[in-house]
């Protein structure tokens, strides 16, 4: 195997031999290796377009709304949100789970598909990983700021040594969350950054501006593209991929424990870990499709993010959608089969109680709409997949809403039953979260290479692997 000692050259992912994928599917349009660099680096090296500014402005405004809302309730108390006595959690936790779920696709694409030698991932793994990291950042704001005293929660949930010998509660799923999400964020960030290094070096080498050169010199950590560099890089990448893979399963498993470990009917279910992981992948892939469809239009990356890529993604969406649909059905079956009166009530209440609209939104969006992907034409239709991916995102948001709100609002004692209605502050924070995510993502597409140039080159006909 030939590793080329070129800083702008082709990375040879030493052991990513693939025979399963026809390379002409992966990069279309007769691109040369130079074209790859030009195409990918173009957004970084030019002034932003008015479209970018427009998008950024909108995202920043949304973030501003969120900041305003968060400031208000941190200063005055959580009472401005719609939370109440039975509903101790509301759409803040819905958003947390939603964003953590979104984050999953990134790691799945970058790590698991990498280990399974799915070479088609190369075009999308960078942005998917970026999405993961930004989604986790966005997600983390929720559990922290929705606590009553976030200024203390920020560090009291960490097991740090202190003179009062106060310790955290290792039995609490929330603590497991801190570890799981924390680990996930750290590993994902390192994985992403390591993957970026060769491309950062390419940008460094192309830089004409001194400041730019300095920044990218520091970021590329002295990458020279030597054999030794590549060898170390690739083993590091492989190890990190290996480390990330179990995290894909563990994070959402543990997030699901927040619910499953509680004794609340509607939460207390052993099906939650696989159900949540499938749901996370489902929603994550939908989000990736949403973003890629926009990105390949906006930055003219159609040659790299091809219809074949998207079709594969859509297949995964459909498969995971079926799993999620199965889980919905299974919950009802168990509620009936177990004979548990509380369990039975909560599921009937879900579908036909005051939150029926949320339940049926969820079911239709997640279990029924993705069925259109049985048809190849739908899988390959940009408008169809865009709409379906949006519906899946909406449906998955509502799935968490259904789990959080409907289970809490009517639990064991009918005397304490209530109803949860989000307020404008809840929605403002939700909008702010999208703002935060898109601000970060838009900055990313301006500042860092959105496609792993080195990896893409390896799957081009001119690249290292000719069968």
């Amino acid at each position, binding site marked *: 195997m030939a590793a080329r000692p070129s800083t702008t050259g082709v990375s040879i992912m030493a052991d990513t031999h693939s025979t399963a994928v026809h390379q002409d599917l992966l990069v279309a349009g007769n691109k040369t290796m130079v074209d790859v660099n030009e195409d990918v680096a173009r957004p970084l090296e030019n002034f932003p377009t008015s479209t970018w500014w427009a998008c950024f402005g909108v995202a920043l405004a949304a973030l501003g709304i969120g900041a305003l809302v968060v400031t208000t309730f941190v200063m005055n108390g959580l009472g401005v949100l*719609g939370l*109440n006595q039975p509903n101790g959690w509301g759409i803040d936790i819905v958003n947390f789970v939603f964003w953590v779920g979104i984050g999953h696709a990134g790691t799945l694409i970058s790590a698991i598909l990498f280990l399974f030698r799915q070479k088609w991932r190369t075009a999308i793994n960078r942005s998917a990983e970026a999405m993961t990291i930004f989604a986790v950042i966005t997600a983390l704001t929720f559990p922290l700021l929705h606590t009553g005293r976030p200024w203390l929660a920020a560090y009291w949930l960490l097991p740090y040594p202190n003179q009062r010998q106060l*310790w955290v509660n290792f039995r609490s799923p929330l*603590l497991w969350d801190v570890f799981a999400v924390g680990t996930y964020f750290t590993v994902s960030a390192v994985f992403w950054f390591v993957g970026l290094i060769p491309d950062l070096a390419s940008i460094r080498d192309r830089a004409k501006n001194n400041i730019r050169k300095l920044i990218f010199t520091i970021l590329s950590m002295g990458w020279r593209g030597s054999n030794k560099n590549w060898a170390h890089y690739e083993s590091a990448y492989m190890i990190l991929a290996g480390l990330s893979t179990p995290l894909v399963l563990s994070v959402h498993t543990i997030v699901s424990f927040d619910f499953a470990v509680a*004794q609340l009917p509607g939460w207390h279910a052993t099906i939650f870990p696989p159900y949540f992981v499938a749901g996370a992948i489902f929603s994550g892939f939908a989000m990736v499709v949403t973003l890629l469809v926009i990105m390949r239009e906006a930055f003219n990356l159609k040659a790299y993010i091809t219809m074949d890529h998207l079709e594969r993604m859509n297949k995964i969406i459909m498969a995971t959608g079926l799993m999620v649909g199965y889980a919905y059905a299974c919950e009802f079956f168990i509620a009936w089969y177990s004979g548990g009166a509380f369990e039975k009530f909560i599921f009937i209440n879900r579908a036909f109680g005051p939150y029926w609209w949320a339940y049926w939104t969820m079911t239709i969006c997640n279990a029924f709409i993705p069925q259109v992907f049985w048809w190849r034409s739908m899988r390959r239709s940009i408008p169809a997949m865009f709409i379906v991916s949006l519906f899946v995102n909406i449906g998955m948001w509502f799935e968490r809403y259904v789990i959080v709100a409907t289970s809490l609002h009517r639990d064991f*004692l009918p*005397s304490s039953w209530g109803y949860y209605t989000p307020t404008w502050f809840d929605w403002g924070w939700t909008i702010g979260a999208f703002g935060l995510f898109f601000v970060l993502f838009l900055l990313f597409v301006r500042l860092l290479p959105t496609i792993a140039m080195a990896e893409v080159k390896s799957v081009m006909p001119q690249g290292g692997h000719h069968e």
Partner: protein
Amino acid sequence: MSFNETKMENQTPQSFSAPRHWIAPEELNSSYWADSKNVEKRGQEFHDKPVEAIALIDKLDTKGLARREFLTIMGASMAMAGFACARRPVHKIIPYVVKPDEVTPGIANYYASSDPETGAGLLVKVREGRPVKLEGNPDHPVNRGKLSARQQSAILDLYDPERLQDPQTVDRATGKKSVATWADVDARVVAQLKAAGNGKVRVLSGASVSDSSRRLVGEFLSAFGAGSRWVEFEPLAQDEIVQGQEESYGAAVLPVYRFDSAEAVVSIGADFLGTWPNSVQYASDWAKLRKLDSKKSKTAEMSKTFAFESLMTVTGANSDYRTPIRPGDELKVALALANQLILQQGRSRFAGDGAVRAALESYKPEAVAKEIGFDAAVLAQAADALWAARGKGLVVAGGLESKSKSAVALQNVVNLLNSALENEGQTVDGNAAPVARPSAGFAGVKQLIAEMNAGSVAVLVLHRTNPAFSLPASAGFAEAVKKVGLVIQVSEQWNETSLLSDVVLPDHHALENWGDARIRKGVTSLQQPTLAPIYATRSFQDSLLTWIGQGKLGASGLAARVANAAENTWHDYVVANWKETVFPLAGGSFQAFWETSLRDGVFVQKGVAGAHASARSFRSSALAKTPKYKAESGVKLALYASMAQADGRTSNNAWLQEFPDPISTVTWDNFVAVGPALAKKLGFSANDVAKVQVGSASMEIPVQIQPGMHGEALAIAVGYGRKVAGKVGTGVGVDVFPLVQIEGDSLAYSGLSAQISKTGKFYKLAETQWHHVTENRPIINDITLAEFKKNPAAANHTDPHLRMEDVPTMWSKHEYKGYRWGMAIDLNSCTGCGACVIGCQAENNIPVVGRNNVRISREMHWIRIDRYYSGSAESPDVVFQPMLCQHCENAPCETVCPVLATVHDDEGTNNQVYNRCVGTRYCSNNCPYKVRRFNFFDHWKSYEGSMNLVWNPDVTVRSRGIMEKCSFCIQRVQKARFDRKNKGEKIVDGDIQTACQQTCPTDAIVFGNINDPESRVSKLHADARAFRSLEILNTRPAISYLSKVRNKNGGAAQHHGGEHHG
């Protein structure tokens, strides 16, 4: 301990001489003391008003911030933001230089006193000179250590920042008020009193239970010639009972009922367990015959209670047979019952009495039952039960909701029944009432209004009354009072009547004043101040004495002697009056007698108090005016007094506004209660706004659909809709006093023909409970006496799959080696009155959250009364269940808290560590009982300014962002532990009473050590009736409930909503 050594009254100006010891140099200057404000400040609890002082510390009113101030504050906060690491300012606790006797920081003193409204005996808990809680005086033979929700909440009024703080003069024409000094006011009043002319002075007040006060007012009025009268008026007066007694037996007394020996009780519109003035005693007595011991279940006996009522009351909810009737039907029901008993069954010595027969003849039980729409069999059952228990039964009626135009006639029939059943002299005691007192009904005020209109009133003194609010406008009080030369109002609060007065004088709160009370023959209690006056207030009685003394008015008797003596205060008057009137009953040395009485709070004359009376003979002539039976139809309205607000005098009390009504659970509003059938007929759903019209008066008011209401009945609580009450009370609810009808010399509150229609508007009531059936879940247990006799552990109404006493477990159970705290709550004793809710609120510094937060289920009460209906919506059965932290052995909250802020201790309590809590609310989500309360805002700020002083120093005040819940009054457990430890002893049963237990009138709540097999709580835990709520979850609560047992037929046929399982 007593206050007899400490003079706490104000010094009146004429007795003042500059003090020998001065505080500030300006006090040496004689002109300083010329300003009477400075004189008045001496003797007050605070030199600066606490509101102002505290307001300066913790409140910046941003609304009034000028631009420059804003910039200054902004600049300062920016600068301070730069010093983020600066330490908080140090507030030093300054120890006493000379420690007052009796006061030890951290140790509470308890002083016996009494409530001037109801005469109940109080124990005032005082910490470092501040009263912080009111508890019942266990030595008082009437309330026996228990207080109602309203009685306990009086402590909050003491610290209300909106209390009147200075004398005010009001320009009646413009309504402009200005602050005056006592000296100026007194001069003006005395001049007017002297000029008033013979017989032209009137005092109008609420009913008084104080002998000393009554004597003083009488002597004061004696100075103004015959015709100067004292008029008492209470909107909630039970004057119809008094009048009925007079017509039936010849003496105008309010009888005392002995529910503790009443084995069969029939209530006809009488809420004796809820809103009657003596409900604490009556509930306590009534519950004595409802206590059951499962060990003797085979021979168990329990009293049987029947209720016929037009709205769902606490009494009806607790009765075994409850029959909904229309407002105004009470008389018919009583006559039909009498007809059943005396004519149909031919029982009693009245069976042959012609007058009685003539009166009852036309009221055939079947006809009456058919007209009203109930099964006549219930009348027969009631008659049988009463006859079987004759001499040990009781028929009662009376109260606002049955005060229709035939209220007195109803009393006469009730008296007939009690006499016929030989209950008179046994369970009805006409001799236990104190001396006959004038009726506080409408007749007196009516005459007063006529006199005012005739111009024969020159000076009117108003005390503890608010006629501008509580009389219907058609009574014409507001117009009449304009013709009075000088209107003086003595009041704690600025209210509607203040606007009609010339001079408004701030009155002492009961806890700042002396006094006495007599509500039973032979039982006289003392009221003593527990802190010096907070503001420049003066008691009503001191004002009278001052005017008598200053004006040399020539009042008679003791008043003149005291007013002209050197010791010329109200305190001296009370002492002198006791020396003359009460002391002779005791003998010995007066000083010893006085100190003992003050310490005990009550003097009980042996052989007189509680002595059994002989039966009085019923005068059949009282029935002469009984109308002939005539069927009626149409929707009728009853006005009633709510448990929280009564007649609305305490509407500025936030505890009471947020007190959930025991039946409707609505807070912060009144509403028109409409039965399900009528609501369906008219197309009302909950929270619709209805227009209710009575005669020409109408108002818009939200609808509450109330199960158990008759299909032609409406009910609305009075006491809401205050226009001038204060920040809390003004504008809460709708004022329905304008709907009251004048019927001759009395007011009709019930049986009013009303129209109700839709308005299309919507108003969301702030309820604390939204769902009213148990869904067959294993939450409560509700059986009949027959079932209990067969098997005391019987359980029904729940899904049998969900009943599991001992859930199998792989794990070893928790070990509790020393004490293990637990509680037992007897659902059969709990009347749902809610006294525990306010007791807990006062003890544990529980904030109020306001109407909007209650609407979205954010109320903070640590103990709530869950109320479940079963059976039909038209006539449901009711169970009350006090729900509080269950202190589970396997507490679901504990495992999920990430920072260990809620932990189990080795004595079985689940402790919430406020300092550690970061507010994830996971514990609350995982709590199956939903008893945890989250501080969504800084709710403690609801205690504004001086209200901070009501806080119990033993309990942390919680900031926003943290979770709180019932602690089993851990501060009381600790106190008992230390008290015993100091003596080297162990805690024994009864040392610890939680706040809820302490005030529970029926002793439904028992707390103690479950590990001690001899403790009451462990015996109750072992009782066959004991069960734990949601046992199947294996949370293993430390609270056991005891099944509710109904003394009625049927049982298993009833069920609690949803389909019947199993």
